[in-house]
């Protein structure tokens, strides 16, 4: 099953490699990993999307908690949560396809953020599923380049993840 782990870590050199190293050393999957400092500059927040049985995800959580730099670990998928991912796609947009490309981007509420006479760069935010659907909606040959941030997640409602 797919799980989304939110992790608060000390903003120390090496904290990322401790977390990444744990996943590789113990053979756990990482589908995506994002990390950036929080409003408190001494801490960073990671979102890791992983897959595994309940037993494995329980072990992952315990092993993460064991890392000295890790302040807190929460499995967001255990409760109601929101997840978003940002994607930038550079597509071919010339001739008769140019209008069609614009319309498809609009349907997915994408924004065109850079333009040349032969291409568009589209910014799209949403769940992983939505971004996948957008790519599928495009003609494969039209996609020049994609870059995705990986998932960031947050709990719904008033619940907050605090140190």
């Amino acid at each position: 099953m797919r799980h989304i782990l939110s992790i608060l870590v000390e903003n120390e050199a090496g904290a990322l490699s401790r977390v990444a190293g744990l996943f590789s050393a113990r053979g756990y999957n990482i589908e995506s990993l994002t990390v950036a400092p929080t409003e408190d500059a001494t801490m960073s927040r990671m979102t890791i999307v992983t897959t595994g049985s309940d037993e494995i995800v329980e072990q992952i959580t315990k092993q993460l908690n064991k890392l000295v730099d890790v302040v807190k670990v929460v499995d967001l998928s255990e409760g109601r949560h929101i997840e978003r991912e940002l994607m930038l796609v550079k597509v071919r947009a010339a001739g008769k396809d140019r209008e069609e490309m614009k319309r498809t981007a609009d349907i997915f509420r994408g924004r065109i953020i850079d333009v040349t006479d032969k291409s568009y760069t589209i910014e799209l935010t949403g769940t992983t599923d939505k971004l996948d659907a957008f790519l599928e909606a495009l003609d494969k040959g039209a996609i020049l380049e994609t870059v995705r941030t990986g998932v960031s997640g947050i709990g719904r409602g008033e619940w907050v993840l605090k140190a």
Partner: protein
Amino acid sequence: MELKLPPLAETGETLTGAEIAIRCLQEEGVEFVFGYPGGAVLFIYDALFKQKKVKHILVRHEQGALHAADGYARATGRPGVALVTSGPGVTNAVTGIATAYMDSIPMVVVTGQVPTRAIGEDAFQECDTVGITRPCVKHNFLVKDVNELAITMKKAFHIATTGRPGPVLVDIPKDVSQQSARFHYPEKISLRSYSPVVKGHGGQIKKAMQLLLEAKRPMIYVGGGAILGEASHEVTELVRLLDYPCTNTLMGLGAFPASDKRFVGMLGMHGTVEANMAMQNCDVLLAVGARFDDRVIGNPAHFAAGSAGRKIVHIDVDPSSISKRVRVDVPIVGHVKDVLAELIALLRASKEKPDAAALAAWWDQIGSWRAKDCLKYDRNAKIIKPQFVIEKLWEVTKGDAYVTSDVGQHQMWAAQFYRFEKPRRWINSGGLGTMGVGLPYAMGVKLAFPKADVACVTGEASVQMCIQELSTCKQYHLPVKLVNLNNRYMGMVRQWQEFFHGNRYSESYMDALPDFVKLAEAYGHVGMRVEKPGDVEGALREAFSLKDRLVFLDIITDQTENVFPMVPGGKGMSEMILSEDL
């Protein structure tokens, strides 16, 4: 107006980073530092030279330093400290660090690093120390600012010795050891990201008590955590209070005394029939500071299927050890000593008592497994049997020696036949299984307990992996006794090749062994060769009577002897091969 106080770090005297490092060791009450100098640690060695409190033990190879510090920690419970230089100093130390990590041994390892400005430039003797050691330390630090050194050392000792212990490494660049800062050593430290649970959950402890009282076929399984957590007294009290069978793992030997009739021997791959069968067939299992590893329970699926409805209570300070290989019904995270004390108090206060009739039937069943006498061997053999040597060693040392071992058959025989009565007397590498630890372990133990008998049970293959430390033993007058069970084979490799690889002894025979007697003499020690069963006891007595000499006993043993019982890799614990089966 607000009164402005200078930050704590500025109130002390001004010292160099090197002096700060040594002062921190003094503040921690460190007796010995095991190490080897080199370019990046020259300032630290200079600071060491100018003081007397911390004694430095110069080894002959950094691996020896780590193992000796580790052995000291295992025997005393206090953190072992090692000091090595950058680059090859660190890479040589890695085996020792990993060995300590796998067995959760508290250590602080101080390493030199190239100057901060040279880091990343592939400087002479540079390596990415925090990167290389990251997977085999509890935590590590690179100190880039001398003002952070004292607090980092404090953190290192705190992390190494609390929760589930382990090695912590502090990497100090040469320029940091040269720069100066005000010295202040904090008495206490708290880390927001590190606060191990110590107190067990009261409700869970009650559930555990209930299960233990309802048990028809109970079993108590005690691992190295009981020794690390100083819980031997509580384990013993609990087992005797309930009159339940108890087994110790390889790492837990001595946590419960072997002389007690409730002790069913060690369990696992080379455990006794009674211990393994009781594990497999019990209905309530209490696991204390143990981790159900592959060498203990074998195949987890086979173990889980062994006893329908078996309930497991697991006490451990590390939550990640619980339900890792085997699903547990009542997990209790906490300090084993305190949890057991609470459990005992609850049991004493309870009106309910264990089911005496069921327990009697269970003991009868265990008695029938015991009657197999699975550790029997040929006592009338004309050639020396290794088991016989260990039995004689036990007799000669009155069962009260510190016994270190290397890794292989001799290790298993020592574990099976030296009946450990007390914790911290059996010093071996269980998790990583590192050949070569025995001699440096013995050094660390002997330094900690100069008056005690220290025996290193080893084999002719293992002992050669750190043999250079015989020289260190000479320098510091460490009269340990090496009991070399010399069968001219890497015995355990040979045994597996005999059982599972059609007797093809691929590279497990050592030709051209040194003359160990002469070798010991060359290092300035006493060497003795023993070739007849009748001479074993006399030689051991003579060796231990030479109080101030290291004695290397080269004992020529049966080449074909195997360790029994044996659970083949991947099999279940009740699928043992016994000596009589072959």
